[in-house]
């Protein structure tokens, strides 16, 4: 017999669980304080109601139903209304402070079980959430009894054919599964929620620790909590695998660059443009968008560094009219300051914007600005999450990345994202006898031949113009320039073939 799974409807969770939580079983959701256990428990029911038409019973051992209704209203869930519609039912097992309680002798949890069974029957529930085990156990003193009783409740849940989530506290983020050692009795399936402080930043992750007898994705996945939606898990590897790849070429917006790339970018590829400040990255993003709109493609720009006014002014300076493009409905410019939210939240919003606008092209200027507000690991996950999403939608992407030094060098950003992108274009300052020039190189072009020269380029009111390669200088990429004497150059020209000028 194979174990069926119940799709939870929690965004991203069904990816990493390979289809949902084991049906007719209890899944233990364990986490430290503040790790969103109660939100998880509530959302398990809420998504059942909203998406699957499955009713739910919420057994609360900790907060009162009134507190839960109030707290979850902040996420946009109207529990009261679901209760009125007979789709959500509370079993209030929270501590009754107004009564004096004395414990003496043996007892069982028969009343609790009877109430749960009764509630399930009343509304025909298919889901149960219990929050939290720790709150129950601290009130009952006989752990041997409780252990046996939990086992009985677990068996009863299997018999009732309902799928249950039970939350439990843990002391350390990376310690024992749960605090009371009784949880293993009920938990064939364990999900761990973490809320880790890393480089002064909070990072939420979810991990499927075990699913007895069925598969799931391994490791920690970042998640965030979005108003109106609740928990959104960001399944990194899960969506990467589905990428298709296209051989269709699109213009970079610059015909000379198209030639260097062997005929343009690929339609669903991601291009990274790296360079120091002022080398022409924003220009390249602008041309990329302009090139799209001239072919009637929809283009989206996420700007993390410059204001809208400034971007529009820049574009006009290069002969691109963003305002006109917006009026035609072909362009949307979204300016975001990285500091306004965590990376996971940015990612969710960007995904929403992309799905709403449905662009053919997305430019991000600059991606490295996001590095400021994140840990290296979080940043990498952000880039992977964003890239896989863009690829999944078969959108062409262009990211810019600012290098910290003016000459040569790479940034940490690039080290972490260069393997993820399909193509890399370097923009570099080149100093020749006290004069600054700009150089461009196509470093990588996945699945295509490309020009291997480092070419000189200029910028004027019509944009970027790519010219001949630098010939009497080496060490441009590293920033350690070496001048090669003309006679040496002559000798080398005899050894190798001539310069290949770009023919248009």
């Amino acid at each position: 017999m194979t174990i069926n799974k119940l799709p939870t409807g929690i965004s991203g969770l069904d990816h990493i669980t390979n289809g949902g939580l084991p049906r007719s079983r209890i899944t233990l959701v364990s986490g430290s304080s503040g790790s969103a256990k109660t939100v998880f428990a509530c959302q398990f029911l809420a998504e059942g109601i909203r998406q699957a038409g499955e009713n739910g019973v919420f057994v609360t051992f900790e907060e009162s139903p009134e507190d839960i209704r109030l707290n979850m209203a902040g996420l946009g869930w109207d529990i009261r209304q679901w209760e009125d519609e007979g789709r959500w039912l509370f079993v209030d097992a929270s501590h009754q402070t107004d009564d004096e309680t004395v414990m003496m002798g043996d007892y069982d949890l028969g009343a609790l079980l009877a109430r749960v069974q009764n509630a399930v029957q009343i509304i025909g529930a298919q889901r149960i959430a219990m929050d939290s085990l720790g709150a129950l156990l601290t009130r009952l003193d006989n752990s041997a009894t409780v252990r046996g009783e939990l086992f009985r409740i677990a068996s009863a849940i299997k018999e009732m054919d309902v799928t249950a989530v039970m939350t439990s506290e843990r002391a350390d983020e990376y310690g024992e599964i749960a605090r009371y050692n009784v949880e293993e009795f009920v938990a064939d399936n364990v999900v761990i929620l973490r809320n880790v402080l890393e480089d002064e930043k909070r990072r939420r992750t979810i991990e499927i620790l075990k699913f007895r007898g069925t598969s799931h994705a391994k490791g920690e996945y970042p998640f965030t909590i979005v108003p109106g939606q609740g928990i959104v898990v960001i399944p990194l590897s899960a969506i990467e695998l589905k990428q298709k790849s296209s051989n269709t070429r699109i213009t970079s917006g610059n015909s000379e660059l198209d030639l260097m790339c062997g005929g343009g970018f690929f339609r669903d590829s991601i291009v990274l443009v790296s360079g120091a400040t002022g080398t022409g990255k924003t220009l390249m993003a602008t041309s990329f968008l302009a090139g799209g709109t001239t072919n009637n493609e929809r283009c989206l720009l996420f700007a993390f560094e410059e204001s809208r006014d400034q971007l529009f002014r820049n574009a006009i300076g290069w002969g691109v009219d963003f305002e006109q493009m917006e009026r035609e409905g072909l362009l949307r410019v979204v300016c975001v300051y990285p500091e306004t939210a965590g990376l996971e939240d940015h990612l969710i919003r960007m995904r929403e914007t992309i799905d709403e606008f449905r662009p053919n092209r997305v430019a991000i200027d600059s991606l490295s600005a996001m590095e400021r507000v994140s840990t290296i690991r979080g940043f990498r996950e952000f880039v992977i999450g964003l890239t896989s999403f863009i690829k999944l939608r078969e959108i062409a992407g262009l990211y810019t990345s600012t290098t910290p030094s003016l000459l040569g060098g790479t940034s940490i950003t690039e080290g972490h994202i260069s393997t993820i992108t399909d193509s890399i274009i370097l923009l570099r300052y080149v100093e020749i006898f006290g004069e600054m020039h700009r150089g461009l190189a196509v470093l990588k072009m996945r699945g295509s031949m490309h020009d291997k020269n480092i070419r000189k380029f200029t910028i004027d009111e019509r944009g970027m113009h790519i010219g001949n390669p630098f010939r009497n200088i080496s060490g441009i990429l590293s920033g350690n320039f070496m001048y090669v004497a003309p006679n040496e150059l002559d000798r080398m020209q005899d050894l190798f073939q001539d310069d290949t000028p770009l023919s248009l």
Partner: protein
Amino acid sequence: MDNYILKLYITGRTLRTERAIFTLQRLCDENLKERYELLIIDVLEKPHLAEMDKVLATPTLIRELPLPRRRIIGDLSDTQKVLSALGLDTDSAGEIV
């Protein structure tokens, strides 16, 4: 003298249940004679009452009157403790152990 209203929640008719009922009945007859009312509620038959009183464990004895409301959870085997919890222990009237 106060009148007593007591509710005893049980789950089915098990040995533990029968013992608790027997003990309680005896204590009441000995100490409260004509001035008590005892309701025995089986949660399997009337789960909605358990819901109303927010009972988790069985057996649970609730002293509704006299106030304050008091809950005694367990099989009531220690009669001295039960009497004390019900406030019927003359030596330590109303004391909670």
